[in-house]
């Protein structure tokens, strides 16, 4: 696994507001939600922090495997890619909690389809055929 990551832009777009992150993969149409500790770790990861740096800044006990599994889930969804720089990143203290990537695929047929050629002929965009 790479040491440091960054957002898989421009294929993936993301924003974080009030401690909650939303990420959308424009190629698959999958979109994702990260809340609480998950959003804090997400922010640290896309800024280039290593798992070690994130673990070191935890304000309480955390199972390193839960962090590793979380990172794997983000990579499996292609939300992160390897970062070339190796500069250390200062990670603010964060309160450990359940690390979870909430993934949604209900719009993949819409975000991924061509609205001119691949829509329901009777109902039009944004309805996919047989939706």
């Amino acid at each position, binding site marked *: 696994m790479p040491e440091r990551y960054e957002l898989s832009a421009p294929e993936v777009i993301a924003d974080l*507001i009030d401690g909650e992150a939303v990420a959308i993969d424009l190629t698959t149409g999958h979109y994702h939600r990260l809340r609480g500790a998950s959003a804090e770790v997400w922010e640290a990861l896309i800024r280039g922090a290593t798992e070690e740096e994130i673990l070191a800044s935890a304000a309480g006990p955390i199972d390193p495997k839960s962090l590793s599994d979380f990172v794997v889930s983000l990579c499996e969804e292609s939300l992160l890619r390897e970062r070339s720089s190796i500069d250390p990143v200062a990670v603010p203290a964060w309160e450990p909690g359940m690390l979870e990537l909430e993934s949604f695929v209900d719009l993949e047929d819409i*975000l991924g389809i061509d609205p001119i050629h691949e829509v329901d002929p009777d109902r039009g965009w944004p309805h996919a055929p047989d939706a």
Partner: protein
Amino acid sequence: MNDLAHWLDHQLQESAPEATLSRSFGGRNVLLRGDDFEELQQISWALGEASAIARKPSVELRVLGEVLRTAPIPDENAVGPYGVVLTLEGTGWRACVDVDEGRLLAYHAASRVALSAALIPEAPRHRSEFGRTLLHWLATDDGNLVVHAGAVGRAGKAILFIGPGGAGKSTFVRVAVGAGATFLGDNALEVSFEGDGVATWGVYGSLKVRPPLVLPDAVALGNARHDADIGKDLYDMAAYASLGEPHAACSLVALSADGPRELTPLGRGAALFALGPSTMVQFPLYGPEVFAACGQLVRSLDCWSLGQLDTVEDHGRILERLLG
């Protein structure tokens, strides 16, 4: 320059249709021009009923006829996602085509002229798919956003309602308008960012409700005509609308069937989650720009969560709290 761009340049110079109609479309004035007045009326229906306004148009939509048969519409290989003609990049034009149906919408940003044509007569709702694309392009060019939301206003202030289909946007809008609020939209709204504030502009002048009515005891809004294809009743809201005038957005309410029965503060990240993907699928192209603008929008508003309410009085109470 490619053949299609040459052809579009020629049409821009040579097309001089006779019949005209003017419509308010978002925050701008659209001049519709064509040779067939009936055709223009059909298209204006698709763009949305609105009162004609006399100001200088901010965009001109020219409806072309049989001349489209001479257009060098590219084969499938030159058409990218959403029917966008990729080879027009750098020519000053952007265009969507439907190769199979012979439909074209092209927009020349420098002159703010759009050309639209279809070889096969289409139902108005099919035309509106291209009309929606034009609205989206115009809004994006102007730094605005077309958002998947309903809205009502009063005394220059507006509430936005977001949520998936069936969450209650149209019901809340219908009840609020029956109680005296101004209709701004039930499903689409243009917003512009001005300093720290957000101005909202109504776009379409119709309200679509799937029968039977939820809360049938709300004030009636007149007769509806039923569109069997979409299974909804359509109300002409011209008498209740303010399509050419902005309202300052103050609150965003995320509606859901299982939400709280009282207004509950909603984190702006949660609001973005409810708004961003939904808006992107309603208004394709410029996904990153649309998503960023959705983030800017939720950062600018007070955000709330609300479930479905049982009575007209409950809706009125929420309206008073947010707009009173």
